[in-house]
């Protein structure tokens, strides 16, 4: 499995990365916005590999929701289906509803990302 972290805040990048390394043993790829994530998907990622994306919402250049729109076109064309966990400091229910309405999103996780809660979520989706 390949893991991609799409996050602009360096502290949150570090936290997510450390937790994932500790829990899954996989070293994630880190990009800082949706555009970079798309670029990575098109240029570097092998579509046959199972992919987990940890996606922040509020980012410069291209935010999480804009990325999801672009991604749905990409998945249709390339016929691959990544699993997505959305992460945000937002406590606005509209963001949560919008995230849950997207079929690619497994779960909307309210930050802070903490070890115990994260393990449960990974287990729930057979990722741990």
């Amino acid at each position, binding site marked *: 499995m390949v893991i991609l972290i799409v996050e602009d805040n*360096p502290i949150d990048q570090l936290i997510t990365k450390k937790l994932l390394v500790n829990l899954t043993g996989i070293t994630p790829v880190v990009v800082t916005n949706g555009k970079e994530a798309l670029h990575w998907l098109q240029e570097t990622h092998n579509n046959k590999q199972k992919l987990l994306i940890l996606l922040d919402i509020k980012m410069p250049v291209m935010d999480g929701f804009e990325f999801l729109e672009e991604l749905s076109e990409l998945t249709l064309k390339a016929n691959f289906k990544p699993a997505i966990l959305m992460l*945000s400091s937002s406590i606005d229910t509209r963001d949560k509803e919008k995230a849950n309405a997207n079929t690619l999103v497994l779960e909307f996780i309210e930050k*802070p990302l903490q070890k115990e809660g994260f393990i449960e979520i990974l287990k729930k989706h057979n990722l741990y």
Partner: protein
Amino acid sequence: MPPSLHFIKRNSLSILLVSLGSLLVVIFNYYTIKTTSGVRTYINAESTFAKAQKNSAIYLLAYLYDNEESTWELYKKNLDYAIGTREFRVKLLSGADEHQLKQALIKGHHRVEDLDNYVWFYKNFKGQAFYNDLTELVERGNPLLTALEKLGEKVRIRIKNNQLSKNSADAYATDILEINKELTVIQYLFSDELSQISRSVEKTLFIANGLFVLIIVFGGGLYFIFIINKLNKSEENLKKSYNDLQLANLELDKFVYSVSHDLRAPITSIMGLVDLMKHDLNPDELPEYLKMIEESLQRQDDYIKKVLSYSKNKRLESKIVPVNFNELLDEILNDLRFSKKAQQIEFVKELELNAFKADKVRLRIVLSNLIANAIEHSDETKEKPIVTITSKKQKEVIIITVKDNGIGIKQEHLEKVFSMFYSGNHSQTGVGLGLYIVKDTVENMKGEIGIDSTYQKGTTITLTIPYYNGNINS
């Protein structure tokens, strides 16, 4: 001008028309009633006068043959009525006083109450063609009445002295009948004249009333149109206010969303870090974690300050005061000078315009933010980081630029830099509120802001604010 006054002014024409129309109707109707009453009085008088003349002729004729005292009395009485009327006319024309006029009216067997009508009609229509016609007819009748009177006197003396033969009675009778015939002709002419006046009054009344009603309807119509226009305007204003309110709500919604997110973000970062430290703490990493916590807190502190200054700026009253631009810049640079980055930068001032009037408080907020940004985004890899501030007057505006040779902004970020809570780079301490505040403040100053930037080369911000002449205080 307040809207209500403006409204009154716009409506004054229609209100004037309605008032004028009403006033004309009232005045005209007053004259019509007075004229009609006058004509009626004259017709009545004429009828009484004609009867008296006729009767006196008839009784004189009867007296010629019956020689009865009572017939003579009847003749005298009727003759007095006719003479009284004649006297009244003469006195009216010669401008006699009210008492004399009343005496004459009583003598002529007319109603004293009608005196006002006679006088009014006479005063208002003397000199008019029809009045002259009437007077002419009366004057034509006067000698006939005198002739009748003289004839009566002669008959009376003859009868008293028993000197009236059958033949001379017949001769007198012929004279009396002749006078009576002429009087009858005059009376018909007089009646015709009066009824003609009556008809023309009626016609004028009809036309004039129609015209005045048209004026009133037109005025009322205009008033109605103004009211409809005013209502339409109010509706438009209401719609605009509603739209503005919706925009404001949207803005507020965005504000609350961003503030809640951005205030929470540093907290969630720290909570995440603390959780990480709790479970897998590598002592070597502790200083790095602490630094990160410190940065997060710093970021939140900055953010709170910026939100506050944004809120304060919104409510700040605009005060246009004289500005010494050079001094203002020195004050700002003194405040910013202490950071490590600032100490490496050379600040250059190229001030073509130094003394002007402006909203100094807001200008300081804007320039502080812009210069702080320039310092923050300076490029340490450059041989000499420079920030250049220029000022000049162009037509009726002041143009101020803040130019740096810093890290610059990528084209894709440029269009978003002024939007609320956007930050191109989280690794910096900026949290995206700065340029939004700057833009908002510049707009409060009735100015404009523009940005030009090349990635890795530098950024130029251009401010355009109004140039104030004379003594302006607000």
